[in-house]
């Protein structure tokens, strides 16, 4: 019951934030010169003034900014995300088409980063200042410092062009049509490089956080107590230290779920994946306000959902968080 009320409070608190974000993005985009009709003319390489006027009327751009904002919010209340100017379909459909690729990529790289970050962090902390620690920390720093787009392109050069092990881009092979398990394997193969590219950067962060947090907890009194009870080191680490050291990691995941959605624009572009990041980028360039606001809305929902799960995890890892309030 406590968990549910916590959830309810969290959700209620996020609704005003969501509305503020949407209004902010709407107004920010008004500051950018040009509208979706200008962007369309830029793409077409020409167009006359009469056509432009007709199109502006069609998209409702001849109304005042406040009337447009009012219309948008009113539609949103009725759970209607509107119509996309560039795709000629409802925004909800456009986003639904792109969501699977983004979620797949995000879950894969987040799991990869979390799992390996955790293991490597623990290994580094246990051998602090010895060679495993130095090695892991050095590699971690390298992955952290490397720009994602560069790492992605280099991965393509090595694994796709020279070794020819993995495809250079795309979501699946389109020259042949696979079904069932073969298709799943094909998609998985296409996602290896993007997952590594996106995941290694975050893994570097996680392993450093994990290492620091392990070292801190290892020096606490209850660890000394556990050791003095005669427990072997592995049991101490797994049962007592790890659980407490995980808290900052879990916090970070909640914060970074949002960043990953944004950070994937680069990875999606380099690997030609049809995800939300690229859709958002294109919506800005094309001044497709409805689609962009739709993406902000959906991303915000995703972040809220992830943070909610993180809150539940906190409660599981550290019972003081729910009972203490």
């Amino acid at each position: 019951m406590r968990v549910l009320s916590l959830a309810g409070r969290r959700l209620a608190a996020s609704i005003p934030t969501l509305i503020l974000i949407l209004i902010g993005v709407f107004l920010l985009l008004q500051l950018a010169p040009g509208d979706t009709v200008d962007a369309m003319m830029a793409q077409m390489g020409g167009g006359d003034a009469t056509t432009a006027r007709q199109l502006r009327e069609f998209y409702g751009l001849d109304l005042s900014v406040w009337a447009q904002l009012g219309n948008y919010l009113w539609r949103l209340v009725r759970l209607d995300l509107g119509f996309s100017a560039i795709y000629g379909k409802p925004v909800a459909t456009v986003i639904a088409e792109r969501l699977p690729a983004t979620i797949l990529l995000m879950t894969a790289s987040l799991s990869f980063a979390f799992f390996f970050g955790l293991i490597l962090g623990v290994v580094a902390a246990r051998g602090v200042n010895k060679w495993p620690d130095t090695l892991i920390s050095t590699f971690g720093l390298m992955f952290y410092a490397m720009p994602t787009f560069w790492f992605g392109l280099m991965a393509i050069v090595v694994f796709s062009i020279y070794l020819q092990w993995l495809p250079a881009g795309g979501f699946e092979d389109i020259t042949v049509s696979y079904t069932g398990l073969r298709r799943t394997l094909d998609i998985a193969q296409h996602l290896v490089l993007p997952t590594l590219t996106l995941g290694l950067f975050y893994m570097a962060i996680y392993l450093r956080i994990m290492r620091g947090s392990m070292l801190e907890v290892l020096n606490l009194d209850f660890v000394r107590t556990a050791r003095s009870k005669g427990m072997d080191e592995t049991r101490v680490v797994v049962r007592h230290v790890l659980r407490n050291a995980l808290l900052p990691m879990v916090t970070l995941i909640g914060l970074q779920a949002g960043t990953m959605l944004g950070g994937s624009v680069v990875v999606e572009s380099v690997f030609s994946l049809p995800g939300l990041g690229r859709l958002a980028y294109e919506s800005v360039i094309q001044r497709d306000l409805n689609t962009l606001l739709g993406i902000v809305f959906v991303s915000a929902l995703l972040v809220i959902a992830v943070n909610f799960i993180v809150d539940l995890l906190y409660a599981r890892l550290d019972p003081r968080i729910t009972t203490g309030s």
Partner: protein
Amino acid sequence: MDMTRRAALMTSAAIASSVLFPMRSFGQETPRKGGVFTVHYGAEQRQLNPSLQASTGVYIIGGKIQEQLVDLDAKGEPVGVLAESWEAAPDGKTITFKLRPGVTWHDGKPFTSADVQFTAMEMWKKILNYGSTLQLFLTAVDTPDPLTAVFRYERPMPLNLLLRALPDLGYVSPRHLYEGKGDIRQNPVNLAPVGTGPFKFVQYERGQHVIAERNPNYWRANAPYLDRIVWRVVTDRAAAAAQMEAGQIHYSPFSGLTISDSARLGKDPRFIVSTKGNEGNARTNTIEFNFRRKELADIRVRRAIAHALDIPFFIENFLGDFAKRGTGPVPSVSTDFYPADNGPQYPFDKKLAAKLLDEAGFKPGTGGTRFSLRLLPAPWGEDISLFATFIQQSLADVGIKVEIVRTDGGGYLKQVYDDHAFDLATGWHQYRNDPAVSTTVWYRSGQPKGAPWTNQWDWTDPTIDKLIDDAATEVDAAKRKALYGDFVRRANTELPIWTPIEQIFLTAISAKARNHSNTPRWGSSSWHDLWLAE
């Protein structure tokens, strides 16, 4: 970085000659049926119907599915596609097309003059960019029988203008799928086009790919050769080059790769990088002057700016053999209209530039600066961005401080053509095989505010207006050419826009492709004879 680019570009002459290589073996090979041809698709458009949007981003897909009345042949001359023959009345007000018999749409319905009538009146005249200007005086299309379409004009329409414009602005759409189906722009067929062309639309996954397959009922015998064409959406230029090397893409059209990747792939025997097949897509780099600034309204300042730029140096070091010195609004590839004398050319002369500025009364102030200008580079290509920086540095040498303001496409059009919030702008002028299609609007006064790529410079010249109007309705081809010669010389003398660099798009294509780049607008053409060697 500049050194490596320069070194890379030195070899571009070798690249150009390697184009001839496959031609040699060409005669001995038997065309192979089958295969999937993959194409780099860099910028997704809002729709794919070339009757509604004249741009390479649409032709690269729609041009394989739908066909036009005429196209250009290998020599750049008009050749019938859906039209078999044409004839103009002596007064130039009636042009009759005889249509090809036995052609069917992909859904099985016959292609007739009713389709031409509907497309011309409802799409070319009302919606198509540049089409609406070209067909402004089109009053009706008569259809005396299913294979005859008679175009009636209020004012004389030069036949050679129409025939050179129709390859781009003459794609026909199926009347039965548009008439009475609501707003033409919102018709779902625009994203799943139905045509008469060699390839049938199969699927469009936004952000991923478009697929078209062989049309078994195509009207040309034994065509096409390919089983399928797949367009892969790749927005990152470097990633597109990598996918070409990994064998996932056969062809990157219209300078889709970076300048350095193009030079690199050109040295690789697996690829051909060339300007061939893009002669119908010539463009010039422009500098537009805003006459609302008193400094720029002075012709001596405009000429001084032109003299201050060392164009051959810029071309040699940044663009290589794929560009050359531009001479005026009509590029040299336009054999029909390129004049023998282009008028004043403004060679690089820094001293003369400084002298002209002194004469105009803009003496250097403190720190040597005469005045400051805002320069807006268009975001269409790498070369424009480089050119903007080059302008900035060159003009600093003669005491003009330039601030570069970078925006995206929509922002650029809005600021230059609607808000007029620029002093200098630099971008591309696309030449479309006849100056009346998209060139003269850059110079003719009276353009509505906000119309992109038109005269928004606050510059009016009755002489050039008269030349433009006379040439647009002159039916005698020789007289038309002479009028455009006068137009070019006048434009270069008054210099409302300067066109110092001429470029043709670059093609990067797999060496396995055969019958490619064999017409001046090959990237946009139907590819009915394209095939892939093993």
